[in-house]
């Protein structure tokens, strides 16, 4: 075979391999290349975030509007603080917006679902959402149930 054909096909092969790697990184592991997108962060205080992971989605009425950036423990109150990174500019979510941790499907991932409040003022960068409902922990539910059954 001609040397030129070999060179071209080797070039195509290496290019295909590199593209495959990029595809895996972007499409499969979800690396966000558009990091400079407009976002702002608010915090939400939960009594329990069991099962919520960083990079989980934040949704409003089922539409994804952001991601969970970090999850920290508040040692003073024994609560968890989730830092939510929301798309766009501040000025859409009322101050008394509520946050719940819900599960997608039966075995699906946990995510944060927001519900709008009625305040006139809006959440801005760094504000804290306090009207929250933490994750349902199946074990403690079953525990409660068993205790109540025992009491009867």
């Amino acid at each position, binding site marked *: 075979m001609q040397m030129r054909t070999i060179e071209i096909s080797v070039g195509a092969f290496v290019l295909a391999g590199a593209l495959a790697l990029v595809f895996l990184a972007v499409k499969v592991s979800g690396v966000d290349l558009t990091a400079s997108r407009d976002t702002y962060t608010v915090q939400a205080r939960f009594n329990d975030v069991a099962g919520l992971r960083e990079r989980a989605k934040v949704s409003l009425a089922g539409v994804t509007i952001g991601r969970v950036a970090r999850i920290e423990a508040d040692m003073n109150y024994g609560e968890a603080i989730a830092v939510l990174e929301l798309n766009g500019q501040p000025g859409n979510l009322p101050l008394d917006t509520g946050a719940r941790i819900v599960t997608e499907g039966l*075995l*699906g991932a946990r995510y944060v679902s927001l519900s709008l409040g009625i305040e006139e003022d809006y959440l801005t960068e760094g504000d804290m959402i306090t009207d929250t409902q933490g994750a349902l922990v199946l074990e403690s539910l079953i525990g409660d149930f068993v205790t109540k059954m025992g009491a009867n």
Partner: protein
Amino acid sequence: MIEYLRYLGAEALDFLGNLGRASLMWGRALSGLPRWNDIGLLMRQIYNIGVLSLVIIILSAFSIGAVIALQFHTQLAKFGAEDAVGVGLAMVLLRELGPVVTALLFAGRAGSAITAEIGLMKSTEQLSSMEMMGVDPLRRIVAPRLWAGMLCLPLLTAIFNVVAIYGGVVVAVEWLGADPSSYWNGMQDVVELWEDLGKGMVKSVFFAVLVTWIAVYQGYDTVPTAEGIGMSTTRTVVLSSVMVLATDFLLTLSMYGDFG
């Protein structure tokens, strides 16, 4: 009894000798290369080893991706969790199946060819005539194959993963009607860049060194007869397959084991 001990000792010495010769060959061959003049030789080897392996890699990847998606889908559908097919497939492929199966196929397709080629060169005394002409066969024959193998296998692994995930899409989404957005989103939520993709590629680099090294050494050290070449080729495939699987276990243990 004494006879048996003597046999064991001889085997052990043999093994050590082989390992030593293989390491020397590896070191001498690789210390030579990055030289611009040899780029043509490297090109030809990448073509032989990488480009010509593409067909078998793509065909196998597609079938494997399709089969895994089908199995996951039928099992997960019992729990109504078909959405997890994408996640399961991506995890299995990136962490284990991609690197391992590509390395096994690579050993069968390219490793055996390398061994047979170098073995035949040795038995027809092309290698010794090269030495006589003052050309170092380690640099001219061995080094380009080692480099090409180490470059090609990771690339082939990446291509294998992509094609297999696409095979999963064809079965799970196009055929069985899973929701495409949850297929992709589930993957993106769970798969980590370094933890899954990165460590899988590291594995593949280890396998690449292992398989090409075994293949080249078996060819270089063959008994220069027709039978000897046959035996070396068999040994390449057997030894690389076993070593790949054993190394995979050790790598998985050290990467994902709890005593990191």
